[in-house]
């Protein structure tokens, strides 16, 4: 019973009277909001994640054995363990090249299991003497050489400096940790490159190792990272170097910036397709709502006419109708945003892995902002769908209703 009758209670009453219709219409808005929210968050994750990775990697050019460009990308950006090997000779040769500021090598070891983690850990051998890629991330500086049994751990590897970690059946002590990188580094463990190589050869993995013919077992590495002199044109440097070394060392080579932007653009195609889909759902939602509202209006002309008879103005009738539409889309928008937020929150790891996204959060504030924006977009679908009907609503006159009622 409405003890305080008002247009609001009329709106509520009407919405409650048609639960199925309200549910369907709200769901439509909810689907749009979910798609739009998820699409925008994922798109933003992609662009921030890859951009961050690019900015922080610190290297301009990356050399890997021919055919492994893709592996190193997923390794660097997403921490998927991989292993591939080439000769170290390249390091020395590059160091003498014009336009090259720094050169350092890395060795990748794929481990299946480590004591710390439920997920595979990438062991990366690096050269502390020449390194310019890993060192900047360390959250405390190592002013000494690392000893045999020391490692540096990525931020998602559990264990603090001073504690130990088991890798390949051996104990290692954590000498330092890295700050979050948003890249594969987060789930990697770093050790001195020669130590890593020995560890690899000593382990049972070493027996299965696919070391290409003719590679010196005591010096092989996985990748070479190059930092160009400031002001050097990276593209022409890459071209020059690859011309000289690609065949001899059987190399794949990438300008990091290109690599990042190509990944980024591939992923953002996905994101923008998603956004386009959301936009289409939005337009569709507005159109379907408008269509359904047209029918509803036809059905309720008499009711509105009665309201006009008892003194409601055109504005009253319009507000009543738009109010119902607004409430319907409001419920849909709210449910859609909440559901999408829940889904993104609960399954973010699964989503990241499935879609191969950089594992990086975009922050609560931004998420909230996107949620609010999507909510508003969902909210306005109802009133927007009423726009074409406003004239018609205004033209509902008590007189016409009576004529039709006869």
């Amino acid at each position, binding site marked *: *019973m*409405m*003890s*305080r*009758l*008002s*247009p609001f209670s*009329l709106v509520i*009453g*009407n919405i409650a*009277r048609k639960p199925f219709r309200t549910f369907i219409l709200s769901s439509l808005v909810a689907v749009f909001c979910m798609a739009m929210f998820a699409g925008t968050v994922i798109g933003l994750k992609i662009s921030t994640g890859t951009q961050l990775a690019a900015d922080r990697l610190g290297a301009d050019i990356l050399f890997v054995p021919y055919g492994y460009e893709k592996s190193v990308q997923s390794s660097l950006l997403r921490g998927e363990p991989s292993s591939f090997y080439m000769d170290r000779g390249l390091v020395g040769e590059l160091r003498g090249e014009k336009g090259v500021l720094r050169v350092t090598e890395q060795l990748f070891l794929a481990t299946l299991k480590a004591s710390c983690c439920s997920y595979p850990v990438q062991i990366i051998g690096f050269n502390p003497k020449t390194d310019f890629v890993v060192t900047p991330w360390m959250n405390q500086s190592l002013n000494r050489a690392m000893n045999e049994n020391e490692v540096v751990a990525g931020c998602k590897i559990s264990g603090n400096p001073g504690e130990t970690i088991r890798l390949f059946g051996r104990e290692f002590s954590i000498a330092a940790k890295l700050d979050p990188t948003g890249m594969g580094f987060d789930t990697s463990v770093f050790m001195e490159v020669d130590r890593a190589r020995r560890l690899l050869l000593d382990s049972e993995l070493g027996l299965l190792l696919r070391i290409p013919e003719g590679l010196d077992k005591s010096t092989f590495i996985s990748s070479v990272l190059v930092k160009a002199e400031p002001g050097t044109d990276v593209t022409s440097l890459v071209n020059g170097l690859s011309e000289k070394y690609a065949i001899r060392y059987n190399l794949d080579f990438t300008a990091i910036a290109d690599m990042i932007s190509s990944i980024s653009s591939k992923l953002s195609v996905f994101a923008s397709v998603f956004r386009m889909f959301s936009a289409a759902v939005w337009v569709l939602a507005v159109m379907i709502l408008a269509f359904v509202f047209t029918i509803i209006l036809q059905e309720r002309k*008499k*009711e509105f*006419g*009665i*309201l*006009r*008879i*008892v*003194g*409601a*103005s*055109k504005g*009253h009738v319009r507000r009543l109708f738009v109010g119902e539409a607004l409430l319907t889309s409001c419920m849909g928008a709210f449910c859609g945003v909440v559901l999408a937020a829940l889904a993104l929150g609960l399954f973010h790891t699964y989503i990241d892995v499935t879609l191969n996204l950089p594992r990086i959060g975009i922050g609560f504030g931004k998420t909230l902002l996107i949620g609010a924006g999507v909510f508003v977009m969902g909210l306005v679908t109802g009133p927007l769908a009423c726009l074409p009907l406003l004239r018609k609503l205004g033209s509902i*006159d*008590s*007189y016409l*209703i*009576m004529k039709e*009622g*006869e």
Partner: protein
Amino acid sequence: MANILELQDVCMTFGQVKALQDINLSVREGEWVAIMGSSGSGKTTMMNIIGCMNKATSGTVILDGEKISRLNAKDLTAIRRDKIGLIFQQFFLISYLTAVENIMVAQYYHSMADEQEALEALERVGLGHRARHLPRQLSGGEQQRLCIARALINHPKIILADEPTGNLDEANQNAVMDIFHQLHKQGSTIIVVTHSPDVGSHADRIVRLEFGHMVSDGEKKA
């Protein structure tokens, strides 16, 4: 007594159809007038003009001192809301609101909903015990009495009824007439459109229309 309603040379045409032609009519405050005539003679058209639901093509309509033939749609709505109680042959009730709520809607758009007053209005038309029922749970006579209670709730200056008993049996028709008599006694102005000589006979005065012309206007023979 002062004229509450005056029609001067009122004409109404719908395309080719001349629904009303040169109607001149004055109604004094507190008068009970019946408008009679055959089907299509223009009775409803005239009611709609008086009831601020339609505007005359030409001529002047003065209601309670106000020239409503000059007003725009918005002002007409306000006049209708404030001065006129409308009753129709069809029971224009909102199907999903209870009896008392149907009355409260009229209160709300007029000023503010007052449930106590709405219940008292139902009591006066003998529907106090059906206040919480939906229109479809009421008989035709009860629905019409509900419509009357709603028309009266905001104390209109003038009550316009278009075939108020057209859908009712004799007993219910008499009940409605009883209510009208009460209102009349209290000084309300009542204009009733009807086919029924029986209903017309209750009025002080009968106006007859034929083909859009007023053909007679007279105090009923006692």
